[in-house]
């Protein structure tokens, strides 16, 4: 394991500290917690809280800022934060108009946020929760825990954030978030695994000519192991899967996100984007906006995910609404 860290057991605390110090104009670290919160909340707004395990940077703290999240709760690496921490975040951002929790669909995240919500309600705070489940690599059925939440979560942050900033009610913000969740799908792949610092060993092994298709953002193996093919073939495979799952067809309009998993050079992400763009144009799907970069990572995993958000007039307006979050400016 090669990492630029101090004690592997303290990476999360060390990071939260260095992160808050990098953005003292915009952020504070809520005392005694690992919650990163806007320094000044927009008055009378519905509160927006997200979070999850660390190791996905810039998610979620990078999305804390005017026009997006009000607070992000940072858990240990790949480990959902605990209810008491989430509760502190909720209390820090509630202004009496209620708080929406944006949660990625993992058992740990769902349980901890749920419990925090219950605690907050017992203190008289109105709390609603939405669960993001954009990863189509996982089959959604009554017999499973459903699809995972991955990079599409960032679009949900943006949509809900804009809606809240515009003064919408908790119900309206929740509805906007749910609409985004309905219309966003992602799929990822990896060339290399990643190493949880305190585990010290990579999460799986791949040969020089192998890749994993359908990986999540926690160093899990994917759904299929294959020989590496060309950027074009991989981009086309993932995009086609998404198009099918979202039932997109000619005339539909989408926002595109090509997300690096942590160690992928931007050069490769842009090459992938060229092929995604080409395929969408071929299928006569309009590209409203394209985002290429690192939005939801998995430590130093090499690989990428593609996300498509089907947009309509409302979502386009919310996507374009100003955001001051350092990891997603609009």
């Amino acid at each position, binding site marked *: 394991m090669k990492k630029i860290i101090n004690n592997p057991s303290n990476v999360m605390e060390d990071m939260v500290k260095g992160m808050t110090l990098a953005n003292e104009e915009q952020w504070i670290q809520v005392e005694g917690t690992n919650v990163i919160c806007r320094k000044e909340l927009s008055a009378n707004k519905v509160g927006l809280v997200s979070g999850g395990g660390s190791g996905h940077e810039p998610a979620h703290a990078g999305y804390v800022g005017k026009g997006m999240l009000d607070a992000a709760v940072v858990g240990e690496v790949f480990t*959902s934060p605990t209810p008491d921490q989430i509760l502190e975040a909720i209390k820090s951002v509630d202004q009496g108009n209620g708080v929406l929790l944006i949660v990625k669909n993992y058992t*740990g995240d769902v349980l901890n946020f749920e419990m925090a919500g219950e605690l907050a309600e017992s203190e008289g705070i109105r709390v609603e929760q939405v669960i993001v489940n954009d990863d189509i690599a996982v089959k959604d059925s009554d017999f499973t825990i459903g699809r995972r939440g991955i990079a599409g979560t960032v679009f949900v942050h943006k949509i809900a954030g804009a809606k809240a900033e515009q003064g919408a009610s908790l119900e309206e913000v929740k509805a906007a978030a749910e609409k985004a969740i309905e219309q966003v799908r992602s799929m990822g792949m990896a060339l290399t695994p990643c190493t949880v610092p305190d585990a010290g060993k990579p999460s799986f092994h791949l040969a020089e000519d192998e890749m994993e298709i359908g990986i999540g953002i926690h160093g899990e193996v994917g759904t299929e192991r294959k020989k590496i093919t060309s950027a074009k073939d991989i981009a086309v495979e993932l995009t086609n899967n998404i198009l099918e799952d979202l039932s997109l067809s000619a005339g539909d309009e989408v926002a595109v996100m090509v997300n690096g998993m942590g160690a992928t050079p931007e050069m490769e992400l842009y090459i992938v984007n060229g092929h995604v763009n080409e395929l969408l144009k071929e299928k006569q799907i309009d590209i409203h906006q394209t985002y290429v970069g690192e939005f939801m990572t998995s430590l130093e995993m090499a690989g990428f995910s593609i996300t498509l958000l089907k947009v309509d007039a409302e979502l386009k307006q919310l996507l374009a609404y100003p955001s001051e979050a350092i990891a997603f400016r609009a």
Partner: protein
Amino acid sequence: MLTVQLVQEWMKKTNERMQENKAYLTELDQAIGDSDHGINMSRGFREVVNKLEQSAYDDVSTVLKDVAMTLMSKVGGASGPLYGTAFLKLSTALKGKDIVNKEDLAAGLEAAANGIQHRGKSTTGEKTMVDVWVPVVLWWKGQDEINAEGLEKVAKEAMESTKSMEATKGRASYLQAKSVGHIDPGSTSSYYIFKSLAEVLV
């Protein structure tokens, strides 16, 4: 029979096992999860022991409540709320008991096992810690007296039974059929909890 002191012993032994097996639990979680279960357990039970050392307790229920609250606020992930709930239910079931006998413990462990299933929306056969807690409770209820040796054996077999299961809950479920052939990490940490309990029970 369980007393405040024995609960403290139980937690100490559990913690020792979690520290010793931190790498092993993490390896199990690397195979079918996200490589953090050993880290989570080692952090959680270390904090439990720290907490218990700093306080004085009059009854079993209170000490178990502190165990629950510490796990809840220090573990995170799926196992944190689940173990937190288990110990909270156990604590609640033993409220007011000065001496905890076999029957009390049966009722308490049953409440705990139900708590896990309720929180996790899970049942047996899904390749989770439930597959240890439920068989242990069933067996315990069927015993006439405290049988420490038997407890360890039953828990161990239950843990091993998860190897051949296909996961339908927790992260391992993403792997579907590929989850078969690996022991569930949470079942293993649950086995350590019961093994340690067996060692302190008199």
